[in-house]
């Protein structure tokens, strides 16, 4: 998704996303008004619900953690020139891997061995689930978008099958596995902060948030400071130039998707190891698709992704609060807003670019529209 427009770089990276977000918010706000709510009231409750209390903030960050993983996954693939819609399925597989190894070994291994192992296996499962479509794209020409969509469905079928037929605790009504032994659980933030001597409310937020931040930093360094990242970005930007440089595009496709899948697979550490402590049916529930929105908003940059993840986390948490306080509102509004964001920041990202360029030109007194990308 390369850009061909004469916007100066700062406008492209900062102004345009904000404009697109604003338009998306307007569209969503219009819908809110249409169904008889007061958009301003909704926004106030939402912001307060997301950031106003420690507990609210906690939930916001917990949601954000998952989105950081799926957002990074989409971003890494984008940099390699690929659209990874399979984040949903890769996250499912990652959680599955994390959970399976926990069920198998948690009783016999201490936490300091167990948790890294769970992370590793989760990432590995996610990686494999992305690498197969990648291989099919690179060597058999199968369109990675279609195959990853199919793999999403295969993943959820697989999860249901395993849970219902093999992992369900007999005699239990709910479709869940047995609980993991204590060594397979990531400490919650409440526990962690207690250990630091700080008061923190009980919430699903757990130490995997640090893992998410680490992952963001790691992706940043990988993409812009390592040769692997250099080769990946070169391929994503110009496959012919990469060929000229001796980089093998097929290898890059598999590498990009592999890393992408591994990142998505880390969702398991948040949801399975961090919060639930057992395997269940719904632990991804759309996070893979939110990751797309997050990556688009964050312009595929880890820093932007962290910010966008917090934004979406706030929307989810704030949205839940609003649905308590404001009658008739539901979380689906947030889903709708997410869709608008994908639409305006993604598909229609450059519809507004001419208008933004014009405005930028006005602001800078006309000189800037002539400046910018002057082609040789």
């Amino acid at each position, binding site marked *: 998704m*390369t850009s061909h427009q004469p916007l100066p*770089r700062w406008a492209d990276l900062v102004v345009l996303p904000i404009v697109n977000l604003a338009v998306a918010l307007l569209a969503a706000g219009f819908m809110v008004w249409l169904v008889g709510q007061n958009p301003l009231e909704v926004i106030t409750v939402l912001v307060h619900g997301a950031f106003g209390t420690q507990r609210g903030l906690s939930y916001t960050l917990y949601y954000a953690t998952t989105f950081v993983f799926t957002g990074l996954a989409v971003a890494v693939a984008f940099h390699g020139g690929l659209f990874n819609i399979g984040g949903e399925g890769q996250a499912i597989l990652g959680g599955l891997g994390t959970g399976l190894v926990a069920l198998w070994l948690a009783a016999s291994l201490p936490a300091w061995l167990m948790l890294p192992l769970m992370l590793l296996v989760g990432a590995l499962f996610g990686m494999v689930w992305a690498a197969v479509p990648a291989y099919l794209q690179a060597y058999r020409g199968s369109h990675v978008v279609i195959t990853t969509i199919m793999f999403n469905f295969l993943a959820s079928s697989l999860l249901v099958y395993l849970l219902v037929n093999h992992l369900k605790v007999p005699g239990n009504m709910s479709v869940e596995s047995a609980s993991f032994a204590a060594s397979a659980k990531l400490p919650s933030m409440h526990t962690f902060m207690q250990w630091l001597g700080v008061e923190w409310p009980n919430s699903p937020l757990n130490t995997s948030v640090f893992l998410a931040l680490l992952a963001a930093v790691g992706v940043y360094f990988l993409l812009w*400071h*390592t*040769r*692997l*990242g*250099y*080769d990946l*970005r*070169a391929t994503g*930007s*110009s496959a*012919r*130039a*990469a*060929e*000229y*440089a*001796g980089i093998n595009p097929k290898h890059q496709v598999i590498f990009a998707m592999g890393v992408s899948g591994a990142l998505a697979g880390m969702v398991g550490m948040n949801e399975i190891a961090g919060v639930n402590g057992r395997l269940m049916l719904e632990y991804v529930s759309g996070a893979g698709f939110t990751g797309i929105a997050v990556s688009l908003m964050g312009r595929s940059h880890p820093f932007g992704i962290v910010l966008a993840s917090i934004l979406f986390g706030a929307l989810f948490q704030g949205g839940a609060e609003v649905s308590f306080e404001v009658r008739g509102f539901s979380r689906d509004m947030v889903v709708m807003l997410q869709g608008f964001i994908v639409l305006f920041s993604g598909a229609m990202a450059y519809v507004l670019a001419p208008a933004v360029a014009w405005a930028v030109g006005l602001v800078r007194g006309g000189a800037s529209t002539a400046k910018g*990308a*002057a*082609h*040789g």
Partner: protein
Amino acid sequence: MLGISKRFGPVQANADVNLTVASGTVHGIVGENGAGKSTLMSVLYGFYTCDSGSIKVNGKAATIRNAHEAIALGIGMVHQHFMLVDTLSALENVMLGAEPHVLLHKAEALVRSRLTELMASTGLKVALDALVGDLSVGDRQRLEILKALYRGARILILDEPTAVLTPQETEQLFGVLALLREQGTTILLITHKLKEVMRLCDSVTVMRAGRVVAEVAIADATIENLAEAMVGRKVQMGRVGDTDKAPGEVLMRASGVHVKDAMGVVRLHGLDIALRAGEIVGVAGVSGNGQSELLEVLSGLLAPGSGSLAVGGREFAAGAWIDPRTARALGVAHVPEDRHERAMVMSFAAWESAVLGYEWLPQYCRGGWMNHVHMHKATVDMMERFDVRPRDAQLQSASFSGGNQQKLVLARELGQSPKVLLVGQPTRGVDIGAIEFIYSQLRAMRDAGCAVLVVSSELDEILALSDRVIVMNQGHVSGELPIAECNEHTLGMLMIGGGSAKGAQAPRAQPAAAARQGTGT
């Protein structure tokens, strides 16, 4: 066409061109690359509007603003790159856009009968129900001609028609064109192949650098003076930077390189070439005669169907050809012809493009970790030495002017002190000021003992730089001359494939195993 002028930015593609063609004749338009022939015909066909000038068709003034108006005037064009849909039948392709009926079976019946008549009267035979994807290149071209004739073309423009044909197909085409001429169709033939012009045309216009330099009836022309007119410049004696050093050992040798493209057309016919230390070899010839494929094969971007390569003490054969990274490791540098797509990653900043292809070198990358400081420093160095402006290593590669981009690419490739330097179109899109600088750098490389290969469609450039000139024509080396023996006569003849100069290679017999297809470009 009278007084046609057309400018694209700084380039004057056509300058006051006059073209008069009598109806029912075949008129050739010849010239080197960039002479302006395609632009002129595009103006006639409505793809471009001329800046000034006028066009008269059949005596009446005409404005042609798009292809449809051209078609309405009876002008049809057969492009070099066919406009056909592979998955549809030949009949459907002809019909598209001009279907006589909403229901296809009725439309097809009408078109079929008309086409059958047309095929009978012109001798152009195409299997109407075959899928275009299954047709040979020659058939597809016939189909394109049929398409134009079906729409009532009385003036037919053919753009480099024989570029993709086998010799037999070329013969067949000539037959068709002769027949069409007999029937009163006017034919305009854009080509650089003078032999064909001599055979087919009644008259010819020679263009050079956007202007008409000659307009003669074939009866009054000879192939020699056409070649001279096309090439038309004096070789300068006593060029700058000539030394008397004899070339050294062979640093790269390719033998029997045979390349077929995706359509099955042979691009290189068992070519041999040797590059010696301290020598600049210039490859002259009209673009499209295999020069690009030669560069790609030697740099490792393209693996030939058969052949061998010896460089840096290692041998490579067709099944296990050299790859670009190994080539660089062995001291082969490559300045590609296609700057935008190949030489740089346009969205990268300059300091990242400046190591493209070399990012694995220890000074830039230690244990997988890129050393940004060194990369920046190297870029700044390169910009200083080659006067790249603006001196901003952070600026996006796409934001530099063409000349500065080229200087950066050269700085990168030359900066690795390569043993073999392959350069394609070194000064394309480069401003005058930088050209001499680039030439002096190339000469300096030669003087330092590097083996340099320069491919250029600008004959001036070849003559200014080379110690030895190789002329390519139709995938063969048609001749090889030391610079002292080059003049516009010999070179022109070699470029059109005529004359037997020493070093000309006869087409190689195919190796015993059927020549496998090279990986196409």
